[in-house]
């Protein structure tokens, strides 16, 4: 592969991620357009649940994109659109669910598990450091 085709190849690798299914022309205001792009990448398509509506070509995803475009084009804020979606489809429609009693465990679990891991790690370290030095030396030699 020569240099030029290599560059073309690398470039093509990134092209795929930049394209979207949305066939609509961009909104006039680039700020709104980028807010729109950001938002549709955080909204779950309920038909194909592991895709965002930006990725999905399901008819419902197209309808939701159209509706969100219309709202944002008319000046609706991000919070207003999110509220619109939640009152209709529930929190599940958001890939970033709000922090509330039903999601405390969801949001807290990583910190909680990390904490448990840290405690276990600290305990193991303490037990190991209490062991006689010669024994750990001989262990080192064995592993070597």
């Amino acid at each position: 592969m020569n240099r030029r085709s290599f560059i073309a190849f690398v470039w093509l690798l990134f092209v795929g991620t930049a394209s979207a299914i949305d066939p609509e022309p961009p909104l006039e205001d680039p700020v709104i357009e980028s807010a729109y792009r950001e938002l549709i990448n955080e909204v779950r398509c309920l038909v194909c649940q592991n895709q965002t509506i930006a990725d999905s070509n399901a008819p419902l995803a197209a309808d939701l994109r159209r509706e969100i475009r219309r709202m944002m084009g008319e000046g609706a804020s991000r919070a207003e659109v999110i509220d619109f979606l939640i009152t209709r489809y529930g929190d599940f429609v958001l890939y970033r669910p709000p922090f509330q009693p039903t999601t405390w465990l969801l949001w807290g679990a990583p910190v909680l598990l990390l904490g448990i891991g840290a405690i276990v790690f600290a305990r193991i370290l303490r037990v190991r450091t209490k062991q006689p030095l010669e024994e750990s030396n001989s262990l080192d030699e064995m592993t070597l």
Partner: protein
Amino acid sequence: MWRYLIPISVFAVLAAFFARGLNLNPRYVPSPLIGKPAPEFELPQLKNPEIVVGTQDLTGNVALLNVWATWCVGCRQEHGFLVELAEANDLPIYGLNWKDNRPTAMSWLSSLGDPYVASAFDELGEVAIDWGVYGAPETFLLARDGTVLYKHIAPLTREVWTTEFLPRIIAECGALPCLPVGSE
């Protein structure tokens, strides 16, 4: 003792979470509309675009709103049962024809039977978004005052009707047939 107890209890907690998770149906997303007023809408009727069907037709009755389409396999499955329900004439069934083609939908109704008092024709799926529809068939049960009482997502069967719909209808109406207030 702790040496064994801790891993076993951690395992038990994880197993309980996974068992719960695996037994949930990820396709079922509870509707936030339950207990809230039905979303307002006004749409042309499927059979007669000149006539409007909307929220005001639904209120006053305990009614069903069934989201259907001719491209929807589950709708074909439940259609026979809907026709049966309509024949029993216990409560009015309205249809929301979702992202469909008018002639196809009309010929489907004329060949399979029309259980609906009227079907609203939602070609662009805009009303469906307001109702939080994501997968037809969906069936909403509405109270007299227009509150959404229940939503069923999947083909409607006699079993679902008996276990989920009937108790709620009886609670609302007292007995079947469920007539509008004032007509008794």
